[in-house]
């Protein structure tokens, strides 16, 4: 369920490192809790955020969830497909449903994230 190639935050975001860029999305658990996503709001490329800062919101029929960036850096790309197809987050949360790419400035931000085994244990323990 949770790929080894990703790292996970306690806020249920995942991060995939590609060179100096992190691809960020929300986890399967997070999308399942939210239900069917109908609106996604992400920042504009060029905006800078500190780790743990809110970068956007994801709305389902039932609820709204804030998305926090696990890493400090600059937004370099947003997933434009989500504007018309927000359901990608439900269908493929760890792949096609990615949210933003951030050029991160501190390797240290990644150290606080969990690997897949630790995240699964975190979920089992009930957050």
């Amino acid at each position, binding site marked *: 369920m949770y790929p080894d190639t990703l790292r996970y935050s306690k806020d249920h975001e995942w991060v995939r490192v590609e060179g100096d860029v992190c691809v960020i999305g929300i986890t399967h658990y997070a999308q399942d809790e939210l*239900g*069917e996503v*109908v609106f996604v709001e992400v920042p504009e490329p060029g905006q800078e955020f500190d780790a743990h800062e809110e970068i956007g*919101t994801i709305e*389902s*029929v*039932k609820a709204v969830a804030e998305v926090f960036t696990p890493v400090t850096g600059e937004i370099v790309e947003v997933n434009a497909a989500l504007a018309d197809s927000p359901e990608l987050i439900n269908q493929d949360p760890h792949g096609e449903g990615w949210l933003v790419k951030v050029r991160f400035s501190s390797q240290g931000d990644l150290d606080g994230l969990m690997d897949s085994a630790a995240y699964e244990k975190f979920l089992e323990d009930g957050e």
Partner: protein
Amino acid sequence: MAENTLVRRTPLYDAHQAAGGKLVEFAGWQMPVQYSGVLQEHRAVRTAAGIFDVSHMGEFRVSGKGAEGFLQAMTPNDVAKLKPGRIHYSGLLTEQGTYVDDLLIYRFAEEEFLLVVNAANAEKDLAWLQGHNDAGVTLEDVSSDYGLIALQGPKAEAILSELTSTDLTAIRYYAFVEGEVSGRATLISRTGYTGEDGFELYLAPEDAPAVWDRLLDVGGPAGLVPAGLGARDTLRMEAAMALYGHEIDDTTTPLEAGLQWVVKLEASDFVGRQALVEIRDAGLTRKLVGFNVEGRGIARQGHKVIAEDEEVGFVTSGTFSPTLERAIGMAYVPVSMATIGASLSLDIRGKVVPAVIVDLPFYKRAK
């Protein structure tokens, strides 16, 4: 999920587990919020059929000499005009004309009625009725006598007809009969909370699971799905049906909620009548309106309506409409602003988003 002994289970609890329902606590009950997904369940009800467990609703029997007069004095609609075998929508109002609850009244006989009330208000409603029962009519909480299944959607009648010998075509909208479904005694009521045709089936609790399963068996091939509270909410919002705690509560009156048709001021006296007469004569200051959100995002309950940086109203309900595929909602606004086509500004989590007032309901089924 932690076990909580104070949270009650309906007779269909096991059926929800078996169907993969996601259970949440609602009004003191463990209820399914969704099974396959809110959007899918919603669309199934609009195009085929869905079944909802609404066993959490409260039911009171009001009977004995003086029952009609008691209800006439306690509710704003005209009980004297309600015929046996028929149902009407009404409410319990405070002396201020605001809502204690909204409810359905079923008339069985001259002096025998069933009231169906919101689960969250059942205890309060019963106490309210008891507190006003000077005539000493028989007032019984019979909530635990019923499992309640709502079968809703354009295919509801066709599906139910396969399971009953009762003539469904003879049951008009807001009428009921005591018949049978799958050989089990059932009060079959042509009512619902979705804006579709459909039935509400009042069963003995022990009979409810078997009827639920038979509806799935027979209806499944026609597109029937089990539907949860999530879809129930989006369906009732599209149909612009009021929900206690949202459009109506103890601070709002039927007049401003667009429910003046429930209030028969000239029929007879009732609790809250004097206040409503005064409000009518003075003129309303605010009104419930429907709106389409023109920007992104969903305006939800409690979000503010603003004009010139001032809060002038508030959102009572909002959702993404699966039928219209856009964000819709309802809000109280000053009467001076309550014009179809007028623009509104909504404060959605600190961001000002434009909306336009539209006619209610958002969705009306083709007859």
